[in-house]
């Protein structure tokens, strides 16, 4: 039972890690917490659903369709609502992301109504690996997440764009001075976060039904980002998996009320014991 809990927890943690990765990417570049990340996730899983039911694509095609749509959606939102706010303090920008979340949620409700929809591409009997049965959804979630994280680490370490993004996170003024197109990179970051949100949304859709309020699942990944020191990419992954495993294990032994708010209790625990998170690096700021 504990092994099953562990596997479920890792699968849940992978989804948390993907959503937290979306938060962290945007936070690293712009120091803004994007409260619309969960709603981008919801919207993209609806797009995947529409791809496979309305346009009759097969699943692989609608998956990539939704990921590209997520990239375009993120970039479009940045261009429309966040770029005019460059140079503003952080507070109005964060409030603008809340506004984006509201608009996305109500648009999804207007198009697809509040009826929960089912998107289950990984149906089938559980696989047997050494006496442990693992359902295909969980297996594919774990595989896709790890491939994605591997690609991401390659991207950030070796590609020119990834190095530019790291430079912007390190020193904005310096990277501007050395000719990095900061605005285009911001746009790209939002697109990347949208694409990751799309993957997370499609992977979480078989577990819970697709619903306009599904974005609140995304908000539950915020404690994972805090646990891994907001702004660190390996931190987001580790934080997400720790959160997922501990939530699932806690769900086995503790009452349901505690399980529902477990990420938030963990958040307060982290804030009390080690508020900087696990992967904290010291940074200084000029006035």
């Amino acid at each position, binding site marked *: 039972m504990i092994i099953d809990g562990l596997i479920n927890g890792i699968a849940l943690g992978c989804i948390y890690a993907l959503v937290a990765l979306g938060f962290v990417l945007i936070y690293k570049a712009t*120091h803004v*917490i994007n409260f619309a990340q969960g709603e981008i996730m919801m919207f993209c899983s609806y797009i995947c659903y529409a791809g496979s039911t309305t346009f009759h694509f097969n699943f692989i095609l609608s998956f990539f369709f939704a990921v590209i749509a997520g990239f375009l959606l993120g970039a479009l939102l940045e261009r429309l*609502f966040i770029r*005019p*706010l460059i140079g*503003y*303090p*952080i*507070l*109005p*920008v*964060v*409030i*603008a992301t*809340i*506004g*984006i*979340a*509201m*608009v996305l*949620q*109500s*648009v999804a*409700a*207007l198009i697809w109504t509040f009826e929960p929809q089912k998107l289950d591409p990984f149906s089938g009997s559980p696989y047997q690996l050494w006496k442990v049965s693992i359902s295909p959804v969980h297996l594919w979630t774990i595989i896709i997440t790890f491939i994605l994280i591997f690609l991401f680490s390659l991207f950030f370490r070796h590609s020119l764009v990834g190095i530019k993004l790291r430079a912007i996170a390190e020193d904005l003024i310096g990277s501007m001075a050395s000719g990095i197109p900061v605005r285009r990179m911001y746009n790209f970051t939002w697109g990347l976060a949208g694409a990751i949100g799309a993957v997370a949304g499609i992977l979480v859709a078989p577990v819970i039904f697709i619903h306009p309020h599904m974005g*609140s699942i995304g*908000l539950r990944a*915020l*404690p994972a980002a*805090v646990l891994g020191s*907001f702004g660190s990419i390996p931190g987001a992954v580790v934080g997400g998996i720790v959160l997922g495993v501990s939530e699932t294990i806690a769900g086995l032994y503790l009452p349901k*009320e505690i399980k*529902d*708010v477990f*990420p*938030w*209790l963990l*958040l*307060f625990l982290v*804030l*009390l014991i080690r*508020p*900087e998170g696990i992967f904290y690096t010291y940074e200084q*700021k*000029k*006035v």
Partner: protein
Amino acid sequence: MRTFSVKIGSRRITLSDRMIQENDYRKWWIIPVVAGVYLLPLFLNEYSIYLMNMLAATIIGAVALDILCGFCGQLSLGHAAFIGIGAYSYGICHMTLAINPIFSLFIAGFTGAFVSLLIGIPSLRLKGLYLAIATMGFTFITDEAVRFLRAWTNGVEGFKISRIIDIGFVQLNSGDAGFYYFIYTLVIVAVIFSRLLLESKIGRAFTSIRDSDVAAEVSGINILLYKVLCFAISSFFASLSGALMGIIIGMISPEDINIMQSINYLIMLVIGGMGVVYGAVIGAVLITFLPEWISMLSNSFLPMTVDLSILQYLIFGLLILFFIVFEPNGVYGRWTVVKGYFKTFPFNERKVGRIAWIYRWR
């Protein structure tokens, strides 16, 4: 910085090359506004008085959030939790323990302030928007806690609160005009208190933390102390407003504690204008009456198939985006720009007032 002053009519205006400061502290418009507020129930029917009482509780809540968000620059998404805590602690004090209602109101406020210390001290130690995340989590925790503590809070069915309040010499029913005078006195006290707070030493510390926390720390302000103090004052007023809301509605249930409610108060601040108390009041008035206008308009223009709550949600989201992108200082900010234009008429460079207001945000 060069300065010079001009006299136009009865006003004396100091102009500098940086910004405009108005030396006119005689605020004559306060007297007609207060008189108008107190004379209004003579012309209203019962339902309108009920709406106005709700509006008053909302105004206190919006002013409370303005103290936190507008003065100190800390984002809170847990305002609804504090409103719920205020209503529940008033209900438990007054109904279960039978304490005097005035005392119960204060106990409700101080409960909120105490709880805010428990959340504020861990999460305000850090720079950044950790308070927003922590208060958001706190909203979910409060919701579950209310359901969990069934013995005290009556769980999902909701807690009934007496609509009659005994203020010593007279008993007031929350639907009557008498309660209207009581609650609007509280509103005026809250608005004047927060205006005075803004111009006091503490308020200046708050605004300096908002403008640059590093600079504030360097100039000797204890950031943690002032942030926590700000959160406590804000939570006190939020809980007070929650208690009043509980009296007016006569009922509080865990469904009232959700993020949407908190975001509603945030929308009021954005639309009205942050950091000046009047902005919160204007925003509260607009947002309280906006749903009625939306339903009126949609009845006349749209087919019946559109769900009103979705439409309202969409319009609120678009309003936030519109105001943040085009006028981040809200209706009140736009009004000061217009006012500045006319006051400095011969000397108005086009952007003077605008720049002064952007300085407030920086």
